[in-house]
């Protein structure tokens, strides 16, 4: 089985792109399954099942940190995909913060970037973009060609190693090249003993255990404070 981790900000077009690519893989005779990680709710698992007829499940992190929930369930997701006989398992992640990246050393990593997300988005996206292997650039139909070129340039500056695939999530244009590239990827489906490409934020403080009150006396564990003397705190 091939496991693909697909990351990207909310509404970037992850599901739209996966649907087009999965349709091509299905047409080529592959068995496809999908897992969606989200925070509170998600319509994506039903969408995968109803539009493609593939097995799909969702996991909601709810009160847990979405990043931690995601990585703690990596083996379970892969085991589920294998139990369904999938040749290709799409793992769509959402709700993760831009401080982290869900990408794992040795497993193929895809990050979806929305052309509308702005000039500085590639810098702001941090390790989710910088540590990925494949970038999918969506919604190019909504901006000028020059703007697409500028965004691609920003993506290349943030991650010179990644291949960039422009894909139209509405029409599927560009999904042929992307699915061709995904088909070349090696079969890798073991997560245990592998490492995250980037560390996750610490979350061992009173708020992790449900605290909602504000004030120093309610805070314990890993607590970091604003430092007004730090060089970026005030305009020069």
């Amino acid at each position, binding site marked *: 089985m091939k496991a693909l981790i697909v990351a990207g900000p909310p509404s970037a077009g992850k599901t739209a792109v996966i649907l087009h690519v999965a349709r091509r893989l299905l047409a080529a005779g592959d068995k496809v399954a999908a897992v969606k990680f989200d925070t509170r709710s998600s319509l994506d698992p039903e969408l995968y099942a109803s539009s493609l007829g593939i097995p799909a499940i969702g996991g909601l992190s709810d009160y847990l940190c979405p990043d931690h929930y995601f990585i703690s369930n990596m083996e379970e997701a892969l085991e589920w995909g294998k139990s369904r006989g999938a040749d290709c398992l799409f793992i769509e992640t959402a709700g993760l913060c831009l401080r982290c990246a869900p990408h794992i050393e040795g497993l193929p990593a895809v990050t979806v970037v929305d*052309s*509308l997300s*702005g*000039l500085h988005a590639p810098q702001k996206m941090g390790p989710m973009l910088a540590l990925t292997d494949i970038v999918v650039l969506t919604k190019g*139909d*909504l*901006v*000028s*060609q*020059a*703007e*697409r*070129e*500028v965004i*691609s*340039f920003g993506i290349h500056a943030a991650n010179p190693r990644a291949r960039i695939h*422009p894909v139209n999530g509405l*029409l*599927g*244009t*560009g*999904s*042929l*090249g992307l699915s061709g590239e995904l088909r070349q990827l090696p079969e890798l489906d073991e997560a245990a003993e592998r490492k995250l490409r980037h560390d996750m934020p610490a979350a061992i403080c009173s708020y992790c255990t449900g605290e909602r009150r504000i004030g120093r006396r309610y805070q314990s564990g890993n607590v970091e404070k604003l430092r007004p003397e730090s060089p970026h705190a005030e305009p020069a």
Partner: protein
Amino acid sequence: MLNRLEIAGGADRAGRPEEIRGIALKAGESLAVAGPTGSGKSEFLADIEQLAAGDTPSGRIVSYRNAKGEMAGRSPAIVATLSQRTNFIMDARVEEFAALHAASLGKPGRDWAQRTADLANTLCGEPMTPESPLQRLSGGQARALMIADIALISDAPVVLIDEVENAGIDKHLAVSVLTGHGKIAVIATHDPVLILSSPRRLIMAEGGMRRLLAAAGEDRRCLDRLAGYDAALLRARDILRRGEEMREEFFR
């Protein structure tokens, strides 16, 4: 060997094979694309822009050979597109945009912002400066900047133009700055003078390439007359835009 663009026909919106099975364009040639609203003109341009490989709704296959005769892959250096959109999404000033776009194409330096703004200002009414924020440009100004950007910064061997007659800019000047110098130009338009100005015209219907016509002798004679009417309309537009009144002597 010259640059050469080839489009192999696919299917129309109903899935029927297109009547025109293929078109080839050589360096310096232009093709007008005409047809009713929704007939597939923009889709045809999008196929060329993406060098479609049977992976678009039409199933067309587009290939491009450069001057050395090599087949080129998808790359922004080959095709520059003036799309139907008339606004920028990017949050930047004209100068940042011009510098970034030039850098993204590997063409840094050379005062792109001022030159691009100057050319854009010849196409539209109220001038912009390099400091103007993109998102505050009017529809016509944004379009003028997109045209100047394509002419100067993209400077690609294939130029696609979608309805340049919109947004109240000088369409004849726009077409002349965008085309020429051995470029291949594909011009989707509803404008009779622009349609007849290309030696060949492709007629779209129901998403498919329906007919391919060469401008015949009578077409050309009609073009001269239509161009006269068109020039009169443009003169009248300028008079009215300046706040003057129309006089009957205009027609004498």
